């Protein structure tokens, strides 16, 4: 009972030795799904001391083999063939009782959503200690001290405090570190990381990636890293397997695949990553054509909580923000979550009321309007939203959803519906789409409908709030192209709010960087990205996954005190 996990841990593997072997794995989807197999005869080998990235878009089945290895598949799917060998044992043949010894002990897993992956009612310390308890290791007291060591190892600044916290008291990045600490507790041979950084801000993502890289190298673990982001792949992978529709279409050494993809799908995915340099040269002749929107001293403070006997808490979301948007210009507002970038957009269109400041739109101050005057001014500035599923009313036909705006301004229903059909064609859908309901469309198509709706009122300005963030990269590129095209054709000005600097670089003429409600810097995209002046901008740009990898060898990322990551030839 008092053994340390180290002494009890299963024998460690020599670098390069296969640890987890997946052979012709087949996982069936329930009848009625869009294809018979979630995973179709997939084979790959995970070796000690390497990071294998499984890459694919949503629905490619990339998480399935990992969940199968853990015996954690959703109830609707089941394995129908193949083997998953861990040290000679086929995990698929193990029953639940044998799997307990594997889970957490020999294979550990971390997940995408750090915000929901921890039990909200248990202290961090208890959740880590529980791992030892489950495998009957250590004494309660040593479990606690070991938990503190682990929290220190994953770089939490105040381990004692983190240990005593509840999850809701920690940030997303901190929670993900806790998840990693928990996964490392029993020194597993294999760490499965399922999109562990997707829900995180870009700088936090960079830190977590570095942490995983460090720990992997220090402990010689095998890491299966599941992601949709080739930038992340470039950052962290030794080898890559690309999945599409449940099949592996290509696998090999990371550098080879990134430089010379052989399969067209891989090539397409890599090409779809917005290239940081591409948008830069379109610089701004636009700005000379005069401004269409002048924002001055915009300020918004939220008041949270407060009640009969409680003092409210205030958060300054937007602090004295000023900028101009040129006619025909695309201005990007970039920042991490909590930077206030979305609040700026929402204050402009008056989905929120700013506390102070002016929003001048061709002689009118939008910030001071209300009632009917606001309603009339609003048609000049429209919005495209983030969530392709939430932005359309499920009970309203698409054509009517587009026509509702013009109808509200007095256009007759027939004309408005006809115009809606034309708009649908303009954004690349069929006119007949007007008679259908939103659930009949894919995410990308819905986003096109959202754009058509924004255009219906013939606005001068479109605010796009994270308009492509919920889409797969290949779709993302199409929507960005469409927006750019429409902007030129209809002489629109575009305010493009995003957390993704790569997207901003692709589409924006000028970029405004925000942090904690303040404007950090504003300038032409080319300058901001190639030569950031402010330290914060520099850290943002440096954190963009995949960017550094192209200029700096991966090894340089890991701290010098650590042993070199082990490379294995395929």
């Amino acid at each position, binding site marked *: 009972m008092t053994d340390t996990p180290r002494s009890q841990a299963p024998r460690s593997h020599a670098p390069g030795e296969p640890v987890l072997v997946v052979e012709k794995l087949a996982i069936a989807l329930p009848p009625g799904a869009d294809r018979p197999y979630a995973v179709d005869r997939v084979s790959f080998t995970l070796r000690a001391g390497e990071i294998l990235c499984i890459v694919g878009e949503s629905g490619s089945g990339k998480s399935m083999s990992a969940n199968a290895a*853990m015996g*954690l598949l959703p109830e609707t799917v089941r394995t129908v063939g193949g083997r998953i060998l861990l040290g000679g044992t086929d995990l698929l043949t193990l029953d*639940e009782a044998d*799997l*307990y*010894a*594997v*889970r*957490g*002990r020999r294979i*550990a*897993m971390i*997940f995408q*959503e750090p915000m*929901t*992956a*921890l*039990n*909200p*009612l*248990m202290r961090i310390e208890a959740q880590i200690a*529980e*791992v030892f308890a*489950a*495998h009957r290791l250590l004494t309660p007291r040593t479990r606690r001290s070991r938990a503190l060591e682990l929290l220190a190892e994953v770089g939490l600044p105040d381990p004692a405090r983190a240990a005593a916290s*509840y999850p*809701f*008291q920690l940030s997303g990045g901190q929670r993900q570190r806790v*998840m990693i600490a*928990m996964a490392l507790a029993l020194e597993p041979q294999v760490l499965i990381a399922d999109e562990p950084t997707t829900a995180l801000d870009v700088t936090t993502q960079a830190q977590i990636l570095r942490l995983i890289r460090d720990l992997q190298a220090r402990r010689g673990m095998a890491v299966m890293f599941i992601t949709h982001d080739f930038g992340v792949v470039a950052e962290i992978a030794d080898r890559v397997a690309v999945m599409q529709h449940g099949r592996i279409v290509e696998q090999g050494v990371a550098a080879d695949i990134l430089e010379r993809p052989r399969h067209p799908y891989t090539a397409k995915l890599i090409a779809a990553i917005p290239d940081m340099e591409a948008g830069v040269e379109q610089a701004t002749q636009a700005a000379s054509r005069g401004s269409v929107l002048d924002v001055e001293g915009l300020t918004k403070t939220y008041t949270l*909580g407060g*009640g*009969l*006997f*409680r003092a409210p808490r205030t958060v300054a979301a937007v602090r004295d923000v000023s900028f101009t948007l040129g006619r025909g210009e695309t201005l990007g507002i970039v920042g991490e979550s909590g930077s206030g970038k979305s609040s700026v957009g929402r204050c402009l269109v008056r989905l929120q009321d700013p506390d102070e400041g002016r929003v001048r739109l061709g002689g009118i101050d939008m910030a001071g309007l209300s009632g009917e005057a606001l309603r009339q001014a609003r048609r000049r500035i429209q919005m495209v939203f983030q969530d392709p599923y939430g932005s359309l009313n499920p009970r309203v036909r698409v054509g009517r959803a587009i026509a509702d705006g013009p109808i509200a301004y007095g256009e007759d229903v027939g004309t408005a519906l006809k115009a809606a059909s034309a708009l649908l064609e303009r954004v690349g859908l069929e006119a007949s789409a007007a008679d259908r309901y939103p659930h009949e469309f894919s995410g990308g198509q819905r986003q096109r409908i959202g754009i058509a709706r924004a255009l219906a009122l013939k606005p001068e300005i479109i605010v796009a709030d994270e308009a492509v963030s919920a889409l797969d990269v290949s779709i993302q590129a199409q929507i960005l192209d469409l927006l750019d095209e429409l902007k030129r054709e209809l002489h629109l000005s575009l305010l493009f709010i995003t957390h993704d600097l790569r997207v901003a670089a692709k589409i924006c003429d000028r970029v405004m960087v925000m942090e904690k409600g303040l404007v950090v810097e504003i300038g032409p995209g080319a300058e901001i990205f190639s030569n950031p002046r402010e330290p914060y901008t520099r850290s943002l740009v440096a954190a963009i996954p995949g960017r550094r990898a192209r200029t700096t060898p991966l090894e340089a990322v890991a701290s010098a005190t650590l042993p070199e990551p082990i490379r294995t030839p395929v």
Partner: protein
Amino acid sequence: MPRFIVSRLGKMALILVGIIILNFVLIHAAPGDPASVMAGEAGDADAAFLQQLRERFGLDKPLPIQLLTYLSNVLRLDFGYSYRQGMPVIDLITDRLPATLLLSGSAFLISLVLGVAAGALAASRQGKVSDSVISTLALLFYATPLFWLALMAVLLFSVQLGWFPGFGYESVGSGYGGLERAADILHHLVLPALTLGLFFMAVYARMTRASVLEVSRLDFVRTARAKGLRPRVVLVRHILRNAILPVVTLAGLQAGQLVGGAVLIETVFAWPGIGRLMFEALEQRDYNLLLGIFVVSAAMVLAFNLITDILYRLVDPRIGAAA
């Protein structure tokens, strides 16, 4: 926590004042003279007596003054006099209150403990026989009228089988004392507490089952399983603790119904609590008594609510910290 309790007590006091005002409104909205409402049955009280009542409660004064008088009376626990029973209303109520607290308290505990246990069991064996049995029984009891169930329980367990007394609070004239008396009361308590508890047990079982299934799908449960925890540990430590929160909320909301149910159960079992008193007041059209009972039962519900709120905070660290 103390701050929270103080703020809750403040809110409770406001609601209680609201209820007293509602009472006042009802007295005045009732068909007929407020004095005759207070005296009991309308029409047959003599004029001098009614005049005396009017003076005592200031019924000839303007309404706001009357309201203030009424409020201050009730807040000093003066609910007036029950002329039917020949006793002050508050004495009648305090006399009967312990029996009601015993009945509804034990029914609450039984239903919560057994309901949560049954619901958790059903959820953990989803689709198996034990799940079907529990779910079906819960569905049945959820649809059964309480008073009818009570009558049938009397018929079966008291009249037919003779296992439990079907009537009263203790054996009359037995001369029991101490433990013997307690055992006798407990024996009398079994049927009423169980029948009252059954309906709520069904409610909590259904809620717990649904909640457990819901929570089972959450990410942190997957984390717990990925750590290699045994299903029982996952269920008790991770799922159940989270799943029980909505049940506690519901239990708080159901407190009002529990008191209402007690009225019916006490009527059937001649259980000498305020529910039975309410039935007597109805039969005798003793509205003053009826309204007094109403205020007291509302206060009881508020107390139940406070208890469940405190329970909730003890289980969920997030709420206390947000304050």
